[in-house]
């Protein structure tokens, strides 16, 4: 009993530790915990695009804000909807639009 309590405490500490290192996006903070997205058993893995799409809907349902470069990455003529969400969006670090590898463009509202 005692050992399992300690083990449980250790697990909690560990997950808190992970939490502290991996901050979440503000709009996720209240609603989610690690296992909302990291659904596979065992070691945390990068979630599939489907995990995001379940709540947010697919690209076509999320229009990009109009911008002066006329770029709409959610209907890009290079990739259409074949891109995974995590190609551009990161949860635990700054997101980075892959279009900016070639194009001059900024998305001030990139989440």
């Amino acid at each position, binding site marked *: 009993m005692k050992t399992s309590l300690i083990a449980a405490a250790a697990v909690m500490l560990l997950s808190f530790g992970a939490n502290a290192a991996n901050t979440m996006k503000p709009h996720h903070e209240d609603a989610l915990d690690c296992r909302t997205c990291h659904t596979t058993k065992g070691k945390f893995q990068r979630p599939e695009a489907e995990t995001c799409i379940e709540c947010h809907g697919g690209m076509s349902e999320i229009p990009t804000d109009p911008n002066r*470069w006329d770029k709409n990455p959610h209907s890009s003529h290079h990739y259409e909807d*074949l891109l995974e969400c995590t190609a551009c969006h990161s949860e635990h670090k700054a997101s980075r639009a892959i279009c900016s590898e*070639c194009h*001059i463009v900024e998305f001030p509202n990139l989440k």
Partner: protein
Amino acid sequence: MKRRDLLKAAAILPVATLGMAHAASADKKEKMSFDEVYDLIIVGSGFAGLSAAYSANKAGLKNILIIEKMIAYGGASAICGGIVCMPGTKLQEKHGIEDSAELLVQDMVKVGRGFNHPELAMTMATQASTAYDMMMDCGVEFKDKLLRLGSHSAPRGHIPSNASGGGIVVPMHKHLLEKGIKFQNRTNVSAIISDDSGVSGVAVQTDFDSRTGKFAKELTYKSRHGVVIASGGWGSDKQFVKTTMPVYADLRTTAQSGATADMIKSLLAAGSLPVMLDMYQLGPWGSPDERPAGPGSFFSDYAFSEGIAVDPKTGKRFVNELSSRRTRSEAELVVMQKGTKETPNYPFTFCSEETTEHAEGFHAAYRDGAVKKSDSVAELAKRHGVDEATLTQTIADWNEIVKGAPDPFNKPLDVKTELKAPFYSFRLSPVLHYCMGGVAITPDAQVIDATTCEPIKGLFAAGEIAGGVHGMDRLGGCSSIDGLVFGQIAGRTAAKYKANA
């Protein structure tokens, strides 16, 4: 030695000792199990890889895997302009354009300065219509017009309806998904695995991060029908470019960041015969005022065609604006050499407003400042540091040519547009655009062995990673068709190939 190390060693050993490595691996045969098994593995998800999957599937193979090391699928093919030059299609017929495979090959050999492998060039041109049929079958749509790119003797450039290579690779990718073909991204192929019967699989790194080179696991995949390499060029590999062609070391490149030399190195390690590895194509439509292959480069194809290009130092035209990319780039470099770091002498191309109205890329290039508007010759001259009187004369001379006077540079004129203000101009400086070289292949896409000059069993290559089709330099809109044709051939050859046969 662990199994993985052994395989790696086998993959990187010089050809002469490969036999020994085979013996060693044969010894441990019972331990040589692969982590996964497929009918056919294709490396790369661009034109060539997709076409290989398409034809292999048609030929009856079921369990096909396309491996892509980047997050985004499609490589250069997805980000490219998507112009496909094909002779003898229904669209050409509809527009009443006379053309033939022979005429295309003539153009290719001229631009390739005779370095083309004739059988490969002929195969590409004569089978171009099969690529057209494949694209139609996959739901690709082209605009209802044809473009004549530099050095092509007929308008044969087919433009995807969305003016991007994505207009080809996305429908093809989706078509293949429907057919049950598997795609696996973020997976780097790190070595080609051979056994006694030939090439039998690949070593991969999963969850590969192309920015850091980190990965999760190293695994081995078996491929029953040999392996198709469709990994594209290596223009982003500064070290490899510099080592093979030191003079181009500082040029900017149009290549995507994943276009590194790892796969050509693996092919060489597997004993492939290299051809023309030091030959690179430059894009004469690069500009100091935008990133390589920005929207201005698409606009400039129209300015080259309907307008003219001028050397600021002389105020005169300096090249046939529709000559080959090599001729134009070399001429531009000569013009640039007249400048200094402090006062550069960038050549520029310009056209009338009428041309901008149908030029892809104009809107974005003008908005972003790469293309500039001048309301008079005086303004244009001032902007580019040209003598106004000479420039006025150059424009008047050109307008005579448009009316029918002979052109000293012999530029073909499909559209006759008078040059008049307002002018839209674009400064030029060549960028590294395409790897002419690669591994030597047979017309049925088998990779050739460097020691025997015979095909390597079970190793197939298509697209930019293969060399020889275009010789020393290639025509615009001819890389897409190269990958689409030889990709299909590689898929068919692989489907017929059986290990131990």
